[in-house]
């Protein structure tokens, strides 16, 4: 589903140039769960941002199914993003002034889903995430694990083809972390493609394929046997 070729991204400051991505090639099939690992500064978050159309690389190609995405303008990128992608962040990034329900509803509003339909979809996902009794609360009133579940719910409510997760368990303890990972696995099993950046090999073990980055290069790729077999 995703074909990335020769992707290059350079951060320039007044003093130095840092190459974050140095000729990355990456293919992701539909329904795959891919983890990206590597030391700090290896470019993994940059890669995820480029995949999420939040950042623009200097050169290379990024095809989603058969559409080249890097030539889109801002508006088209924004439209593409809201129709096809969902995001989960390490620090949740919920809007403090909105309730759980309203936070989850927001992407549907941007996708111009009618109100009754929205209500149905949000309630459905709230049920699935097991946060029904929290729907009227504000983010600060929830625990980290609950907040992340809301964030996942928000990423999923539009039924995106691709979910991008940036260290989704980074701010959570192991119990809550595992809950979130299980949630992502369930999601993957229903056919959603997931690309996740993580530091934790435990989290990575939930995925089908692990990609190791260093200094902007892919240095190794490993098929996760256990998971793949399960999948087969």
């Amino acid at each position: 589903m995703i074909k990335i070729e020769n992707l290059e991204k350079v951060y320039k400051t007044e003093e130095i140039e840092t190459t974050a991505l140095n000729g990355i090639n990456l293919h992701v099939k539909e329904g795959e769960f891919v983890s990206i690992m590597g030391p700090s500064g290896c470019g993994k978050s940059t890669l995820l941002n480029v995949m999420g159309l939040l950042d623009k690389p200097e050169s290379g190609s990024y095809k989603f199914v058969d559409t080249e995405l890097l030539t889109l303008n801002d508006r088209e990128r924004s439209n593409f993003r809201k129709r096809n992608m969902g995001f989960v962040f390490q620090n949740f990034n919920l809007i403090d002034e909105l309730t759980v329900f309203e936070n989850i509803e927001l992407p549907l509003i941007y996708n111009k889903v009618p109100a009754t339909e929205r209500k149905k979809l949000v309630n459905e996902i709230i049920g699935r995430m097991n946060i029904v009794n929290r729907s009227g609360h504000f983010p600060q009133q929830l625990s980290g694990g609950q907040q992340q579940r809301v964030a996942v719910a928000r990423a999923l409510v539009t039924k995106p083809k691709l979910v991008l997760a940036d260290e989704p368990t980074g701010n959570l303890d192991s119990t809550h972390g595992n809950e979130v990972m299980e949630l992502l696995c369930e999601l993957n099993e229903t056919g959603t493609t997931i690309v996740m950046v993580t530091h934790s090999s435990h989290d990575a073990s939930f995925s089908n394929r692990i990609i190791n980055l260093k200094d902007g290069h892919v240095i190794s790729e490993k098929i996760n046997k256990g998971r793949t077999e399960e999948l087969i």
Partner: protein
Amino acid sequence: MFKLNIKIALRNLWKNKTSSFINVIGLAIGLAACLMLLVYVSYEWNFDKHGKNSANLYTVMTNIPGDDGKIFKTFEGSTTALGPLLKAEIPEIKHLARMNYLKKGLIAVGENSFKKLGKFAEPEILKLFDYEFIEGNAATAMQNPKSIIITKSTADALFGSTNVLNRVVRYQDMEDLTVSAVIKDLPDNTSATLKFDYLMPWAFYEMVDADAKSLNWGNFSYVTMFLLDSQADIVKVSEKVDKVVKTHLNQATQPYSIYQFNKLHLYGKFENGVSVGGDIEQIYLFVGLAFGILMIACINFMNMATAKSEKRAKEVGIKKTIGANRISLITQFLTESMVLTLAAVVLAIAMLEIFLPTFNQLLGIKMDIFYFSASSWAGILGIVLATGLIAGSYPAFYLSSFSPIQTLRKKIQGKGYFSISLRQVLVVGQFCFAILLIISTLVIYRQLQYVKNRPLGVNINALIEIPQEGALKDRYELYKEKLLRSGAITSINNTSTKLSHHNSNFLDIRWDGMTQERNLTIFNQVRAGYDFTKTNGIKLISGRDFSKQFASDTSAILISASAAKVMNLKNPIGETITIHEEKYNVVGLFDDYVWDTPYKSNSPMVVMFADKYTSFITMRLNTANSIQQNIEAVSKITKELNPAYPVEISFVDDVYAELLQKEKTLGILSNLFGGLAIFVSCLGLFGLVAYSAEQRTKEFGVRKVLGASVANLMQLLSVSFIKMIVVAIVIATPLSYYAMGKWLAKFEYHTEISWWIIPVAGFATLTMALITVSFQAYKSAKANPVDALKYE
């Protein structure tokens, strides 16, 4: 979408109560001040513009030539002979009415008598203005010469009702007039020459005043107003007026011009016969002030919003990631500021409603808010939209431009060099304006004091003035004797004009040793009885006052120092002067005194002796008694001798104070709104510091743990703000120095801008800013560091 954005906005406001409060209150004060000034501006702007004909209404002006061939003075006034000729010979004139200026006169119903402003006019005046008739109608109201049209409040005062058609009113205790109509009171912003309490037909005027009946070219005490056809070419009409005057007057020494009447109030300053502005300058000033204050409040709003951008950036980032585009974000922020502005407007209107009566009282006028006029609502809506747009535009465009990862990953990096500097520029601009206002206020105040303290040349303390009317005209000698005998006064004098306002100018004067063929300097004349200089406290330089001991004083004359200078007479006593072919003997030389305006030096002046035909009496009270005793005694004797008239005593010091009314208004307005501008600026500064302190709570906590003192922290928080104020002072002082220098230059008598005004204004601003800043800085510097570090 919209609902959710409103929710976010409201919850955001609620969470930052202090800053929201400051935002809304600041904006409300700014808007209230702006609206208040605009109400005043519209009051002034709509002066004399009430009737549907007002744009085609013209009045005849007279130009007095000066000695240099230019026009020395232009005033609204004309002669009785002019009107009928214009009417007969210029077809573009649809209706024309001659009238007098307003004159206070006695009207009475039985014992119930009042001095009220009366006017005589030809019947066509009813076609020039749209008077609203409560009783009677325009067609019949002026048919009968002995009829009178009264306003509603006059009717209420005289009869206690408006249903008074055909009732009888006694005029000046000599004629009975029949009420032919009752009209609504004239709007407060009607010119003084037209704002009558009662109106009488010209035909009646001709019966009581011979001057009105004769068609003469020498007496300029009348007003001629006419309605032009709306298609008429004003230039052509002017030419025709010139032609009419020239064909009927061999010596057209006083060329007439015509002028659109509703412009006279604001564009009433003439130079060489041409309008060169007038009060309109003040109107521009107030419009500037109004929007300046609003701008300050808007700047507060923008500053707070951008200061909060760090916090809001996260929201923007999230929304962008999940699919918001820039337009929707801009819409959101603009909606937010519109909602706030709307709240502020509601508050502002409430404030306006509360303070308008006080404001009216302060300025001595009567303004209303017109809630039911569509245009004022459209105006308010316009202001809301504009304010919301201006206040919200910067945050809207700035915040929505953030790239999502920039905002989500790290905090906004340094918030961008641009935003910091723009916020600084805004604060500096705000305080520049505030300092400009402080300096202007100080200079206006000092100019007022300067003029107030200028030696008047008249001793106005314990000096009173009453009109000489009714029986007092004939019984002056008796009156004088009684008053002096009562001990209430020490001296008394009768004159043709008020001491503070002289209205008789002339050119026809000759003196011995005169070099020119004829005099070209405007002279002013007053007729006065005995004790003119003694009673009024005017300094006699040489010679003597008029005195009973000299029978020859019927042809005596006193001249002013400036008159002696014009005539180049070193020792004028004993010289002979010829005025209008009559010879006068100079017996005294007196020092110039202030009349008409304290801002200018006056024309040379002569005082002829007059035993009769005077209209005002001044008296010097006996300071041995209390003022109250004196006034009671004077009132009693006056009433006794002149029972038909109410006693009307005015203190001359009050009368002189009125000469400064315009500048007093300016002083009040600049004090009030200057103060408000400074207050709103400080409010904004307070909000900004409070927010900045809140943002740096953690930093302060860490610093405190590491050993920083309260003073260190206060300094940290204050210095950057104080720097901006200093920059503002540096920019604003030369600007205001220049502007106020120009303002002062308009006055012949004016103060200088003292050097100390600038440090005082700078210091005052700095102190206020320092107090504002350090209050908040101290609060956050004193806070317990643990509280600050616990969170996160």
